[in-house]
């Protein structure tokens, strides 16, 4: 083994594995699993020539909980709350994917009002997720103040979301065939008032951070993801839209009632960290547009289909795949059932997992500090990667 020739017998399995084939004049640096720039237990091993990254390998799995095995030991209804735990940032994106897969397999018709409620809460949740990313990312880059502003707005939105979902973080308010609670008048009132407030905040964010010359210098031209790289690694979400590809699951595989609203898919062609940043900033505004229209045209009616499944309900036989647009990209649930009490198999497609897998290639040849900026620009939520 090469590492023994170099006298490298220290380190754990992954560092020894990484040392195989290293150059003689380089240094290996281990970041994490506890590292301030990785927001969770992500570990990256890099081989450095001076300050330049020659090779990088993310080591994941520290937060692995085997959600796919859990699915095989409980009914699908019991499994639903797991979705909010896969991605705490955009829990409702995952809620939507699982209920979508089940409703597709079972042929359920969801009442219109429930679909509107799903859209409103999912988009609110998307904004809270983007705000969390924005605060944490700018913190990575050395700006301490923005997260205070982000959390101010996010806090208010969590209060609003709590009225509709009952929780602040691991939301789990979707049900097979509807949603669990109706929107209260207070929710509608508060949310209607919040949308213009948030819209006024966005130009301030732009003035405060986005147009800041230091931020621009750190992000522009750094960490280019081209269209081919995105396809080879299956990247999605703001990552591909920052690479000039107009691809949003809400448009590409229309689901729920997104086709009834007037909104744009923000696309930036540069493919750099700045482009990914700008996509998310614009998306918050688009989500506000969707929320505003959905609130204005909220239909009356039921929020659950008649004879909705109970806890012991078993899935019908068959296979289905359902994708939604999560805050980080394409969330997919692949469901296989043999008609038994528990699902036969569930595969969770995590957008972060695919986006991060492209990091090693995209970081090659960059300064270490820039590589960390790429990690931040990917908006990583580790529990979603590790599942």
């Amino acid at each position: 083994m090469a590492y023994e020739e170099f006298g490298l017998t220290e380190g754990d399995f992954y560092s020894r594995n990484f040392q195989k084939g290293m150059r003689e004049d380089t240094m290996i640096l281990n970041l994490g699993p506890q590292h301030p720039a990785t927001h969770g237990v992500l570990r990256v091993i890099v081989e450095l020539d001076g300050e330049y990254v020659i090779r990088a390998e993310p080591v994941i799995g520290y937060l692995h909980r085997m959600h796919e095995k859990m699915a095989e030991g409980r009914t699908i209804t019991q499994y639903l709350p797991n979705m909010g735990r896969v991605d705490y940032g955009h829990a409702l994106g995952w809620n939507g994917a699982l209920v979508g897969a089940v409703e597709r397999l079972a042929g359920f018709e969801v009442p219109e009002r429930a679909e509107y409620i799903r859209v409103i809460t999912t988009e609110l949740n998307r904004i809270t997720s983007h705000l969390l990313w924005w605060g944490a990312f700018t913190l990575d880059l050395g700006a301490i103040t923005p997260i205070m502003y982000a959390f101010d707005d996010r806090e208010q939105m969590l209060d609003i979301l709590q009225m509709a979902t009952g929780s602040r973080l691991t939301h789990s308010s979707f049900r097979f065939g509807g949603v669990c609670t109706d929107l209260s008048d207070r929710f509608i009132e508060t949310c209607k008032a919040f949308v213009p407030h948030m819209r006024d905040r966005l130009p301030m964010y732009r003035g405060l951070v986005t147009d800041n010359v230091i931020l621009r210098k750190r992000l522009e031209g750094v960490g280019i993801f081209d269209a081919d790289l995105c396809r080879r690694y299956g990247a999605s979400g703001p990552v591909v839209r920052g690479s000039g590809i107009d691809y949003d699951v809400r448009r590409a595989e229309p689901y729920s009632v997104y086709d009834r609203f007037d909104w744009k898919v923000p696309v930036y062609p540069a493919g750099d960290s700045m482009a990914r940043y700008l996509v998310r900033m614009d998306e918050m505004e688009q989500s506000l547009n969707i929320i505003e229209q959905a609130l204005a045209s909220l239909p009356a009616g039921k929020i659950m289909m008649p004879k909705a499944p109970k806890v012991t309900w078993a899935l019908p036989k068959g296979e289905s795949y359902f994708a939604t647009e999560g805050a980080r990209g394409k969330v997919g649930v692949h469901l296989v059932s043999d008609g038994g009490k528990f699902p036969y198999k569930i595969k969770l497609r995590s957008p972060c997992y695919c986006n991060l897998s492209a990091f090693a290639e995209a970081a090659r040849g960059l300064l270490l500090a820039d590589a960390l900026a790429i990690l931040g620009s990917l908006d990583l939520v580790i529990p979603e990667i590790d599942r």
Partner: protein
Amino acid sequence: MTETLFDGLAVQSLAKCDPAKTGLLWSVFLSPDELLSAVKRLYQAEYFIEDLTAIDAKEGYLLVYHFDHMGHPGRVALRVLIYQEAPELPSIADVFQGAEWHERETTDFYGITFKGNPNPVPLLLMPEMKGHPLQKDDGARASLADLLPTGEIVRTVPGFDLLTPKAESGAATPA
């Protein structure tokens, strides 16, 4: 477009599915030898890899590869059956580098070997861990015909009966 994508390729079965009911547009059964040629064609047609996983069934491990297109969406599922006694098939990480992690994960969960994977070490599970958590016991395995819809079969090779129900009723091959 996909209709002609697999022309000239020895697929075992090519079926069109209803995306509203399954989420798939095409379901393609292949032998392990044909997998790489099919994957290369998808790459040339600018498809992207969504995910890959295995289904542990009576007949063997059914590997399922999902691809989609960003310009004209429509999911393609490539399906390759391998036997539990010799769970091995070629890696596609040379064409779609993103498959490296998905394959390592599938190795962790099912003990399937992907020949040619550039970094075949455990990804999500501990390197010291023995066993593969998603493998099913013999008694718990279902037959593929009970799990997967057949779709509308466009072409198939004679003798391909994976999705034909083998129940007592002896149902005829769905056309």
